[in-house]
């Protein structure tokens, strides 16, 4: 197992190197000059050709692309992800501020969605064709098809504007003001949970329906075991394997897919930062975010693979 993990981590290094190189080249191939954008972001203030040259030199963008990439790579090895052109701040600081907020919301959404979805999916499978299965399946279909930002705006108008129960926008750390923080995350976390929750309900239902038709489950029933024991002790562990795959895939989606929700609710997370950086061609921030998300995805995939071995003893990694 340890040898497998080491092998995976080594191959991950190659993957990360390739990802950063490709993103770096693509960013530089995109039309748009970060220095012109930086200097002309204030529509009213004019600038001169000399200022362009000075700024290009200041940010090292007058060097060949390969040299810029190698400089960046060397910085990464020293724990320095570079400096943002637009914000005059360290990229590590920018990511350090934004990523925990995104992770906090994303993890809450991920945990809540799976805590609700797995039992709901099991109930749907066990009560197949009954009213509860019908209702939950319809809700899951609505949840998976409703656009997140639209749901977010709907929630803002209902719970923020008309009922005045919840704050409309912004983020507060739970350590600054716990209750305000909870109030502020309810709507965004609900929106973020919708897709993984609905997807997981549907996946759990279909996986469990397949498992409960297996011979060993029929045998368990015929032995007279209680329904609770049959489902919880015999069916779930096998039924949950495809759900684990789905849950693993949902993690990077939740982390990287918060752009719209962060924009609608005014949350200063990694999604908003990455989109702003992309539009302003802020190379260092985009590179930094891509690297962090890539590391995250690689690690989550590794954890998912390890979980397979734990859930299914037939799977070996030696």
């Amino acid at each position, binding site marked *: 197992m340890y040898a497998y993990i080491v092998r995976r981590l080594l191959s991950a290094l190659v993957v990360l190197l390739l990802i950063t190189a490709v993103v770096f080249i693509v960013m530089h191939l995109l039309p748009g000059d970060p220095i012109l954008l930086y200097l002309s972001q204030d529509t009213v203030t004019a600038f001169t050709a000399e200022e362009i040259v000075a700024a290009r030199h200041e940010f090292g963008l007058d060097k060949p692309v390969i040299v810029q990439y190698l400089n960046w790579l060397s910085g990464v090895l020293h724990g320095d992800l570079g400096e943002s052109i637009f914000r*005059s701040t360290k990229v590590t600081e920018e990511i350090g501020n934004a990523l925990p907020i995104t992770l*906090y919301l994303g993890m809450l959404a991920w945990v809540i969605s799976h805590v609700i979805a797995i039992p709901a999916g099991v109930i749907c499978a066990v009560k197949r064709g009954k009213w509860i299965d019908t209702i939950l399946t319809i809700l899951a279909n609505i949840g998976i098809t409703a656009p997140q930002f639209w749901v977010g705006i709907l929630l803002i108008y209902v719970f923020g504007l008309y009922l005045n129960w919840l704050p409309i926008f912004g983020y507060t750390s739970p350590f600054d003001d716990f209750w305000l923080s909870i109030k502020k995350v309810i709507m965004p976390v609900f929106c973020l949970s919708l897709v993984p929750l609905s997807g997981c309900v549907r996946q759990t239902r279909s996986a469990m329906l397949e498992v409960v038709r297996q011979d060993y489950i029929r045998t368990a029933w015929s032995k007279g075991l209680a329904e609770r024991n049959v489902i919880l002790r015999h069916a779930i562990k096998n039924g949950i394997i495809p759900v684990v795959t789905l849950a693993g895939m949902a993690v990077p989606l939740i982390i990287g897919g918060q752009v719209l929700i962060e924009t609608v609710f005014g949350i200063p997370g990694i999604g908003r930062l990455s989109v702003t950086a992309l539009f302003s061609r802020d190379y260092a921030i985009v590179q930094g975010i891509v690297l962090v998300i890539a590391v995250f995805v690689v690690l989550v995939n590794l954890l998912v693979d390890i979980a397979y071995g734990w859930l299914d003893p037939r799977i070996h990694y030696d």
Partner: protein
Amino acid sequence: MKKILLISLVFVLMCGIGLSSCAEPEPTAPEPAAPAPATPEPAAPEPTAPETGPKYGGVIKLGSMALSASFGVPWNLRHGDRTSSFLPLELLVRRGQEPGTYEGRLAESWELAPDKSYYTFYLRQGVKFHDGTDFNAEAVKWNFEMAKAAGRPQFANVTSIDVIDTHTVRINISQWNSEFMHNFASDTDCALIISPASYEKNGEEWANTHPVGTGPYMLKEYKQDQYIYLEKNPDYWEEGIPYIDEIQILVVPDMVTFMAALKAGDLDGMWIIDFLTASQLEDDDRFNVWVSFGNLGTSLSYNMKDPASVWSDKKMREALEYAIDKEKICRALTYGYCEPTYEIIRGIHGAGDPGTVPREYDPEKAKQLMAEAGHPQVSGVNLEFSITDKNSYGDAYLAIQENFAAVGIEVELKPVEPAAFNESSFRPTEGNDLRIETVRGDPLFPFVRVMEDLSEDTIYFPGAVRPEGFEDLIDQALGTEDPEQVLDLCMQMERLAYGEIMYVSLWSRPIVTVMKSEIQDVDYSYGEVPYPYFERAWLEK
């Protein structure tokens, strides 16, 4: 199994909460460079105002699409949104209400040497920075030397700065020009004054997000990408103001969210909102919508320098302007917020009448001019515009396309991603292509815009040919001291530029601001950008 699941869930939740705490370290209060006076002075009684006039107290919460990550060091200011800077920081002088004039702020008066080799500023006495240190000539010298050392072009002509006495400072210059004073008065430039003591004690990184100036509001709390809270400066040098206790600037990146927050009472206003949002708030008595016309405009540019381009022919350029029904487009397709314009120096009509004859919509004349030029039909023309314009102006561009088709110019609309559009606007259009561009204007200081945007030496309008005599007029204006004469020269430049159609001006591009109607006496008139000034603002309730 259940235990493991339970422990895992708790662990994930704890990790999430723990990580969220890493995101926002407890805000550290700005450390004043100099300690406050050791003996606390008795609190001054809150000034009372007449019942009908301004009232003290209250908090104003303003929305902003984004906040600058760096707003405390004037020579590092680059970002469009300067509100977080100009509430705590001040200038020596600011732009006056009449064209070409200035008002004293931290300088009470100033004079130009007879040989125009230096300016002397007589500074206001008894002014203190927010950190308690004195504002004086040394502080001005330090600030301007730092800006010059940072390479800001506004200080390129400054050779040295002499402290004459505690409250008199002399700025020596290598070459005077008529707009030199504007460098000290522009709120979008680097002449704002900060406390040298705070900067030197805490360093530039700290100072970038801690504006310690002399302004009516001082920084209370800041969280990047979230909010800036500015509180009233109780020791502000101008007696009796400000009235508002606190101004909060909160990031709301989405207009729909802003609308909901405004109506729910979570926000009191926002500046630079889109036309659709503004139009929805116009008839609501709870809000005031304010529109600024002079500062920005929309234009149609082309390549006059390339002989192969049909637009190198003056008749073809005239035909373009005659072909566009600006009046109807503004009235019907921009929610009535834009006004048609017939000028090259944006806002010049706000400063006076240049005596030009507007080329108003006349498709027949356009066709006739095109026939005379030998190009009765033009096809394969791309009309480039930034995709960010689509919401406010997309329909207007479609209308232009139809106007052009009616006179025989086949145009394909080409929305371009903002970064790519930005880059392309610094090079001439290709062939017969056209480009929608934003032009800067300034009715109070039209010559500043001529120098910055329209002169041959600038990087703007790279496809435009400057008319003969235009640069000579610029040189004359640069050497003229009297603002009225400078304005007169600008009128002459306008006649030349409009006659040669350096570009086709289309309409004003107003900046729209919305505030709750309880907010009184917000002033928009001083800035180069019509930002709201809250010095004298007060809340009715």
